[in-house]
């Protein structure tokens, strides 16, 4: 356990030293929250079916998606590419402990993203906090784990950091589309709204919005997240070398 802890400590330091990763994961969601709060804050259109929780859940959703589809797979694939995992395999430490350390630190980063968005929303933009805290924690945790599982899956299947970044981007943009980032609420055509409930990012954002308005997230979305986690981890475990 102490090996995992010292790995987590060092890996966290390295994570913080990489300012580009930090910028996208923390500053981008915060920027989105700020800009859209400023331009749309006064005039929510009551007829478009966009809940007030859309903006913060979108910011959280994007920040965590970047952790899962960009930083985690790029770090792990880069470690394989550079022989860091190979060097580790010559020591008494099993390389899987490095995976655990990265997962731990990315979960903490996900929690920080949520904290930053909730805090900034409440402090500067008078945004409401989730009215059902427990369902929100469940939804946010499932979403974070699902996206990090996708990250592990990418890292298991590609062999270079560059390939990880390409695959991550290819997945990120359709994910954002199906999650309704550009077509929130009723703006999304009804015929494809079911995709929003079952794609991991859409299911996560929908679940968090449900919790925000005081309900337990819909069963379909929760099942979709659990299936995504189980599927990605199973394939990643099978192919990770």
């Amino acid at each position, binding site marked *: 356990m102490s090996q995992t802890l010292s790995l987590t400590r060092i890996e966290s330091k390295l994570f913080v030293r990489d300012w580009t990763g930090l910028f996208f994961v923390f500053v981008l969601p915060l920027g989105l929250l700020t800009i859209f709060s400023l331009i749309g804050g006064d005039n929510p259109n009551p007829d478009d079916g966009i809940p007030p929780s859309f903006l913060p859940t979108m910011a959280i959703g994007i920040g965590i998606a970047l952790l899962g589809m960009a930083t985690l797979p790029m770090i792990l694939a880069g470690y394989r590419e550079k*022989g860091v995992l190979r060097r580790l395999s010559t*020591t008494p430490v099993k390389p899987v402990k490095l995976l655990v350390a990265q997962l731990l630190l990315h979960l903490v980063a996900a929690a920080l993203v949520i904290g930053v968005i909730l805090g900034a929303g409440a402090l500067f933009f008078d945004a409401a906090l989730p009215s059902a805290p427990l369902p929100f924690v469940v939804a946010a945790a499932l979403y974070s784990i699902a996206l990090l599982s996708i990250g592990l899956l990418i890292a298991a299947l590609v062999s270079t950091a560059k390939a990880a970044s390409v695959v991550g981007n290819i997945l990120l943009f359709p994910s954002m589309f199906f999650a309704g980032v550009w077509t929130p609420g009723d703006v999304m055509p009804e015929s494809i709204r079911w995709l929003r409930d079952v794609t991991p990012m859409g299911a996560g954002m929908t679940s968090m919005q449900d919790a925000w308005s005081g309900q337990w997230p819909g069963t379909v979305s929760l099942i979709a997240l659990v299936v995504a986690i189980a599927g990605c981890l199973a394939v990643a475990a099978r192919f990770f070398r």
Partner: protein
Amino acid sequence: MPENTAAEDLVVVRNLRKTYGATVAVDDVSLSVRSGEIFGVLGPNGAGKTTTVESIAGLRTPDSGTVRVAGLDPHTHRGEITALIGVQLQASELPDKIKAREALQLYASFYPEPRDPAELLELLGLTKVQDTPFAKLSGGQKQRLSIALALVGNPRIAILDELTTGLDPQARRDTWELVRTIRDTGVTIILVTHFMEEAENLCDRIAIIDGGRVVALDTPAGLVDAARSEQRITFRLSGALADETVLTSLAAVSTVSTDNGRFVVTGNDDVLVAVVTTLAAHGLTPIDLHTEQTTLDDAFLLLAGRNFEGAN
């Protein structure tokens, strides 16, 4: 151990064979490394050097043959072996932003009885750059840090794979000096290299590997002596030699080749007389005959059966 090996043999490899699909990486390698020596594994690229040492370190499972390190099977005793052997692998980097000191402290935390990271930084001349990120270190500094990481677990054996590749001559000589210092602290060293000069300067004994087999195993002096006792003669012939086996079947001859119609024959001290009298018996006269002094390069050409130059 069931094998009748000398007590001081720390590593014993017998009839090691390893294939990757249709490629035979190691055909049949047997060697033993004595405690306290610097043992060289020399050969051109693709000869099977790295696969051999990776099998010793337990990173590869042999198809057949046995490997014992201090009496243990490296594959089934992974835990003990990782503490017993420190490995500096070819092309194994570190995260860009990790500092030398952090990397050593981190790796020290992996082992039951690590060496003091500060002492190792001092020994390897890295104290001044201990807070420099890995990506900003020079090639020589990265290589020295890599050696430090191989030593931080306080191993009995250090495997150093191509550790001076890409270094300038001065850095290379400094690294050699360092390897001697490490050996003097009681660490047995297995050095993988394709530089003859490096093996000759540094090693107590050398195994020359080519095509997945050990073609020679001796001290550097022994290898050079063996090579110097080889005579090499070159000549043209007055007529055509119907059958080359007339020469190759002679006891004094070890190799026969032709280069632009010129025969190149190597063999022992008697080769000149044997070749000339045999040719005369076939009614042929050697023209423009030269005997040549054998160089170290010729020795390797002779032992490995081909030139080393293509390997660099």
